[in-house]
C-alpha cells in the first residue's frame, strides 16, 4: 500500500487541482468575454443610448430676435434677455433656514422673504426676483452652484420705441415653441422669417448629481441670432431710446 503523502500522489493531486483551477479560470474568462460581447456588440446601441440618456444633457439655447431699424438706423424694436430667480424651498425647516442663510449673501434676494419662513412655504417654489439684467444675474453664479434649489432662468423681453402709432405698426411678439419670440402682428409678423434666429444645440455630460461637467460641453449646432430689418421709413423718437 502506497502512503497517502508519497510525492507521486501529491504531484497528481496538485496536477488535478491545477487543472480544475485552470478550467474555472477559463470558464470565468469565457463568461466575462460573453458578457463583454453582449454589451459591446449585440446590445451596443441600446446600452450606449441608455447611458447617454442618463449621463448626457442635450439642450438648446433660443436665439435672440433681430432688431427693427428705421431708414436712418434708429432702433425701433429690440430684444433683451432678462433673468428670474426662483428658490425651491426645502421641505425640511432646518434645511430651509440654512439655505436662507446662504441666500443672505445677496441681501436683495431675501429682502421680500418673511422671517422666519411660514410653515406653508416649505416645499414651495418661490419667486425671489425677476426682470434682472445680465450683469446682476451672473453675480449669482457662485450661489447657484452652492444651492441646488436656486434656479436662475432667462426670458426675452421685446422693447418697442416710438409712440402708440409706431408701436401698432411694429406689432407684437409672443413666445415661440422653441423658446424664442415669434411675430404675432404688424411688421414683426411680416418680417418674422428674417427676424427670428436659429437656436444653438449643445451637449454636456452630467456628474452623478446631475451637474454639468464644463470640460465636456460641446456645440452641436451653431447659435445664430436673428437678422436686423431696416425699414424704408423715418421715425422721430423721443429721448431715452434703445442702447
Amino acid at each position, binding site marked *: 500500500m502506497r502512503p497517502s503523502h508519497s510525492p507521486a500522489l501529491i*504531484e*497528481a493531486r*496538485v*496536477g488535478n487541482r*491545477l*487543472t480544475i483551477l*485552470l478550467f474555472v*479560470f477559463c470558464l470565468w474568462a469565457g463568461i466575462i468575454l460573453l458578457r463583454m460581447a453582449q454589451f459591446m456588440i449585440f446590445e451596443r446601441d441600446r446600452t450606449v443610448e441608455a447611458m447617454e*440618456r442618463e449621463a448626457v*444633457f*442635450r*439642450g*438648446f*439655447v*433660443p*436665439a*435672440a430676435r433681430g432688431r427693427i431699424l428705421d431708414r436712418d438706423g434708429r432702433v425701433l424694436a429690440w430684444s*433683451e*434677455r432678462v*433673468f428670474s430667480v426662483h428658490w425651491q424651498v426645502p421641505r425640511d425647516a432646518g434645511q430651509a433656514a440654512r439655505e436662507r442663510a446662504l441666500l443672505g449673501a445677496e441681501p436683495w434676494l431675501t429682502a421680500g422673504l418673511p422671517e422666519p419662513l411660514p410653515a406653508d412655504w416649505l416645499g414651495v417654489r418661490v419667486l425671489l426676483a425677476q426682470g434682472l439684467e*445680465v*450683469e446682476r*444675474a*451672473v453675480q449669482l*453664479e457662485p450661489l*447657484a452652484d452652492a444651492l441646488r434649489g436656486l434656479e*436662475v*432662468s*432667462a426670458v426675452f423681453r421685446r422693447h418697442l420705441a416710438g409712440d402708440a402709432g409706431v408701436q401698432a405698426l411694429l406689432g407684437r411678439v409672443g413666445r415661440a415653441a422653441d*423658446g424664442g419670440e415669434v411675430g404675432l402682428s404688424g411688421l414683426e409678423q411680416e418680417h418674422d422669417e428674417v427676424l427670428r434666429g436659429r437656436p*444653438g*444645440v*449643445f451637449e454636456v455630460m452630467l456628474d452623478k448629481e446631475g451637474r*454639468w461637467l*464644463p*470640460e465636456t*460641453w*460641446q*456645440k452641436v449646432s451653431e*447659435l445664430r*441670432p436673428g437678422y436686423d430689418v431696416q425699414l424704408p421709413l423715418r421715425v422721430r423718437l423721443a429721448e431715452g431710446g434703445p*442702447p
Partner: protein
Amino acid sequence: MSIRPDIEAWKQRFGVCLLAALAALMLTGARDITQELRQRSARLEQVRTQLSEWSRHLAGRPVPTPGPDLASRHALFLVRTCALPTRQP
C-alpha cells in the same frame, strides 16, 4: 507514456497568458490616457472659445469680468440659465 500534466509548463503558459493580457490592458489604457492628456488643453480652449461666443450673444453686450477663469464660469452659467432641454424621442 505519462498522461500527467506537466505542471511547470502549464504554470509558465498560464503566467505568460496572464502577463500578456495585463500588458495589453495597461498599454491600451496608457495610450488612451496619453491621448486624452495631449488633447485636453486644446479641448478646454475650444470649449472656452465656444462658450464665450455664445455668452456674448446671450448677454447681448460685453459683461466685464476680471480674469479668463471667471469669464469662463460666467459664460457657462449664462448658457446654463438660458438653456432648455431638447425633447426626448
